[in-house]
């Protein structure tokens, strides 16, 4: 039986804030926020780590989501009014037939699983997150990519009206990311729609986001609006902003330093000392073969 995290996690803080926002008349929109809805029928996954999940507060209040501000505590505060319903994802590019999927349809693509993954940020901190989602491969199957599709490109929904902090982010929006087809089809790669037993909080990328656990966190694009299948390596936001520091692959690699800081160690949130960073974030057994023969210093 699935542990009901929502019961063990003190949520009064969040509820209070929602009350406050409602009282301020700010959240009175036609579509109520769906974040925090309990997800049922979630299966456990053998691909989960048995490490202890990082507390809910840290997972949901320490976020990088530059559309809602560049400080770690800003997304939790400034994304609460973000409308995630109705939500559609456009599937386009090298596919048999372009289409638009409603969130409801996406939620039914495959049985939901809980995947407890290590999450390693390029800024040398990490957490353990009990994501809920399904393999990206299920979505790709429905999309029916043609033989020309070698990469998958993702785009985050961007609305400057709802994301007024975006203009100060210093990176181009909408946020774009991409994966090579074999990376996208890998069983570890998931579309996440929830965490800690509930739908995704807005600051964590509601209503759906990518999770690629062996890559730095910025690869795991949030609030996806568009999935495009392409022949050539698609541009990715952080590499557009600073190509010397961020590459397309961005696999977690303790031996390839970020130009400005070492990637050899990381601080697991909640721990005092630092721990050694593992090659491919500890998922080497499953994913190293994707990169055999590649110079990972060159393809960082």
């Amino acid at each position, binding site marked *: 039986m699935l542990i009901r995290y929502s019961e063990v996690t003190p949520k009064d803080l969040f509820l209070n804030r929602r009350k406050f926002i409602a009282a301020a008349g700010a959240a009175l929109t036609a579509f109520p926020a769906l974040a925090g809805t309990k997800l049922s029928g979630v299966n456990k996954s053998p691909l989960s780590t048995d490490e202890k999940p990082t507390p809910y507060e840290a997972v949901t209040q320490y976020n990088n989501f530059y559309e809602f501000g560049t400080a770690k505590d800003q997304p939790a505060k400034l994304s609460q009014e973000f409308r995630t319903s109705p939500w559609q994802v456009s599937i386009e590019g090298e596919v048999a037939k372009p289409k638009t999927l409603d969130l409801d349809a996406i939620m039914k693509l495959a049985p939901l699983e809980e995947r407890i993954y290590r999450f390693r940020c390029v800024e040398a*901190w990490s957490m353990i997150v009990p994501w809920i989602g399904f393999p990206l491969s299920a979505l790709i199957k429905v999309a029916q990519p043609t033989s020309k599709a070698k990469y998958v490109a993702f785009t985050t929904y961007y609305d400057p009206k709802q994301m007024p902090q975006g203009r100060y*982010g210093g990176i181009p929006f909408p946020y774009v990311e991409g994966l090579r087809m074999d990376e996208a089809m890998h069983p570890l790669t998931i579309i996440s729609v929830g965490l800690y037993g509930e739908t995704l909080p807005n600051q964590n990328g509601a209503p759906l986001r990518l999770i690629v656990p062996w890559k730095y966190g910025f690869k795991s694009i949030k609030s996806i609006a568009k999935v495009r299948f392409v022949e050539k390596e698609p541009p990715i936001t952080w590499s557009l902003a600073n190509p010397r520091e961020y590459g397309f692959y961005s696999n977690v690699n303790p031996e390839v330093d970020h130009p*400005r800081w070492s990637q050899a160690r990381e601080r697991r949130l909640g721990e005092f000392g630092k721990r050694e960073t593992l090659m491919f974030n500890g998922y080497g057994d499953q994913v190293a073969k994707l990169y055999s023969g590649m110079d990972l210093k060159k393809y960082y």
Partner: protein
Amino acid sequence: MARKVTKIAVFVLCLAPLVSLSWRFYKDDLGANPIEFLTHATGDWTLRFLLITLAITPVRKLLDQPQLIRFRRMLGLFAFFYGCLHLMTYVWLDQFFDWPGIWKDIAKRPFVTAGFASFVLMVPLAITSTAGWIRRLGGRRWQLLHRLIYVSAAAGVIHYLWLVKSDVRLPLLYGGVVGVLLLYRVLVYAVSTHGKHTRQPARNI
């Protein structure tokens, strides 16, 4: 007496950031990554105190408040104090006394190099901040030495600018303030050397 009370009040005020940080640390109220928070907060306060120290001279001249000079040494020493805390956070909490790692960081990472330079430049200023040292060095040489604070502040801003990933608003704001404070000195110097007939030595402005 009143003068002494103000000085003590300013001293206590300068300790407020430390008290607040310590209290919040004790209460576990520094967010999900307290060490990062402490590192950033102590760095911020170092830079702020450097700027406040640099602002004393222009402010006392422009607002005709010459007695403000009484606080300059204390404010400068607080900049050094928060700089020490900042360095300690890095050496102890962040790197855990991994000296080879720290040395590599200083040599290899430009933003660490800049920050370390900013700190090192403050050391001689802190040491020679006493009346005895002013006497020993002589006012002119002492003043010349203490112009190192300009370089230290600039290095501190560069340290911050090179650290941030993409949102450069705050480093640029600090940089702008340093720029204005240094420009003031350049202008004063230019005016005083140009209009020599005023016989106003630059160092008094």
